[in-house]
């Protein structure tokens, strides 16, 4: 078995171990750890599009909301019928896995539908179109009465445990890093570096972009499902463009296309507001101030420890 698979197995085992001992951890820390895990999934999946493939997407929260809504709807509608009144832990776990996959696949389909038209555009235009799609998804949910309209969905069963969050975070990291390090996946980096050159050596840039988009949307959907079953209530307003920005900030601060950096940035940016909780009213002021200072002092990304590989040639 190659090493990445071992690492994934070890991570899932570690997740199970943490879940076993979750009774010993303070519930507050457990909550923070859950949010960190969800943010890691979001940031790492967005890193595939924004970092490795070099396409600037600002609509990640939209895909997250698709996953959150669909998986919550599955749990609410089908849950009681499938599970009965007193389900075993295994049945509940399998059912939750199914609900998450439904959410993830729905988000992937949304990613495909958004990706095909918008990936014709480049740079800032792509950014604004993904932002627009994210907002359209939000407003659409606001207008679907079956999904609670502007009030959102309430009473979602609390299926999200620390095991699921950590296991899916590990799976996301595994999938993305295996994908970009595979022979096929070198194409993502090629598209990032130079689209014309990539096309000239026979790669299909549009195809790569769409694959990146769909995979990234799938994991955003999973993260959304985990988020919904953790918060127990979701509203369309919670998935607006501010949420997308939050994820983009993690990717850029981590150093685009730097897996470890992005994970660390996701952890740091989740912890920062929590650590600043004692200074309640100044907390977000300090947070935003630190964001500016960090970016000015470490423009190459906070955790980009490698020296620049090669200076860009040219004038």
């Amino acid at each position, binding site marked *: 078995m190659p090493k990445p698979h071992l690492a994934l197995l070890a991570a899932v085992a570690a997740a199970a171990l943490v879940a076993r001992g979750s009774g010993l951890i303070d519930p507050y820390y457990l909550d923070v750890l859950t949010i960190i895990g969800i943010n890691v999934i979001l940031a790492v999946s967005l890193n595939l599009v924004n970092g490795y493939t070099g396409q600037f997407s600002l609509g990640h929260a939209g895909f997250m909301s698709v996953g959150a809504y669909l998986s919550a709807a599955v749990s609410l509608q089908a849950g009681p019928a499938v599970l009965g009144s007193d389900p075993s832990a295994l049945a509940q776990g399998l059912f939750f896995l199914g609900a998450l996959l439904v959410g993830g696949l729905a988000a992937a389909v949304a990613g495909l539908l958004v990706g095909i038209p918008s990936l014709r555009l480049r740079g800032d235009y792509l950014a604004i179109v993904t932002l*627009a799609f994210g907002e359209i998804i939000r407003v659409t949910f606001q207008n679907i009465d079956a999904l609670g309209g502007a009030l959102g969905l309430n009473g979602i069963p609390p299926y999200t445990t620390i095991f699921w969050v950590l296991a899916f975070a590990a799976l996301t990291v595994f999938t993305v890093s295996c994908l970009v390090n595979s022979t096929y996946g070198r194409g993502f980096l090629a598209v990032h570096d130079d689209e014309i050159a990539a096309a000239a050596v026979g790669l299909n840039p549009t195809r790569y972009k769409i694959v990146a988009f769909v995979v990234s949307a799938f994991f955003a959907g999973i993260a959304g499902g985990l988020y919904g079953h953790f918060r127990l209530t979701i509203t369309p307003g919670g998935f607006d463009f501010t949420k997308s920005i939050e994820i983009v900030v993690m990717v850029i601060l981590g150093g685009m296309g730097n897996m470890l950096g992005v994970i660390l940035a996701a952890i740091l940016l989740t912890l920062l507001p929590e650590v600043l909780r004692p200074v309640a009213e100044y907390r977000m*002021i300090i947070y935003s101030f630190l964001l500016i200072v960090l970016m000015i002092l470490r423009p190459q990304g906070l955790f980009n420890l490698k020296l620049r590989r090669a200076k860009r040639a040219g004038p």
Partner: protein
Amino acid sequence: MSEFLQQTLNGLSLGAIYALIALGYTMVYGVLRFINFAHSDVFMVGAFLGYYLAKLVPAATVGGGLLVLAGSMIGCALLGIVIERLAYRPLRRGPTLNVLITAIGVSLLLEYSGQFGFGAAPRTFPVLFPQRDLHLGGLVISSTQVIVIVVAAGLLAALQVIVHRTRIGTAMRALSLNATAAQLVGINTDVVISFTFGLGSALAAAGGILYAMNYPSIDPLMGVMPGLKAFVAAVLGGIGNIPGAALGGLILGLVETFVAGSPWSTYKDAIAFGVLIVILLCRPAGLLGKFRVEKV
């Protein structure tokens, strides 16, 4: 028919405000090639400056209203210049994505400082100009709408003169065409960029006050949605293109007003973005933008 004219008028006054904000986005993009996310919060600060300045002048007079407008524009111009100097200039040589993040940081900083300083609760914006309704047949024209359209048109004309008839305006255009060549012919880019930020922020402040006159409730997060729409307007018209931003603003204002008056009013926000997507798919560089073929 009068219903149609009424909606057109409402749409034009909303569109004029979007156009004013969109100009700031588009000018900054023209010289620096990045999206200034903090612009929507400068708009908010403009409205709040108007709120506080209005206490110093007699209410509901033309002179007082213009004084407030001018004061707030000057205040925000200074704010814009300071933001550029402290947050964006240190990153001038870096990739634009980093500047984007600092812009987001500045935006959050202004929003949360606003919530801390001004309070998070919405406030009622005072009456700045004398109010009177004009009845023309079935058409009701409020003086606020007239003022919004007149002020916006005046500022657009002034901007056109500055950009095309003055030395600094010529320098701005030179910089947006080719920054290196502009430096070679002796243009001080720092000064021009500061000026651009000041100009854009002053227009945002005017937009903020006009918006607050139309929808007289202001809060520290009021800039988010209009800012986003204005940004959409700038892209719609072709970002970096000044007449394009004005055109995009007007189109967006009209579309939004007509949709709001139709049975699909709850989809108002989505349709504004839908229009953007359709236009970009047909014309990938916006309505008036020039599409550049990439050369190897």
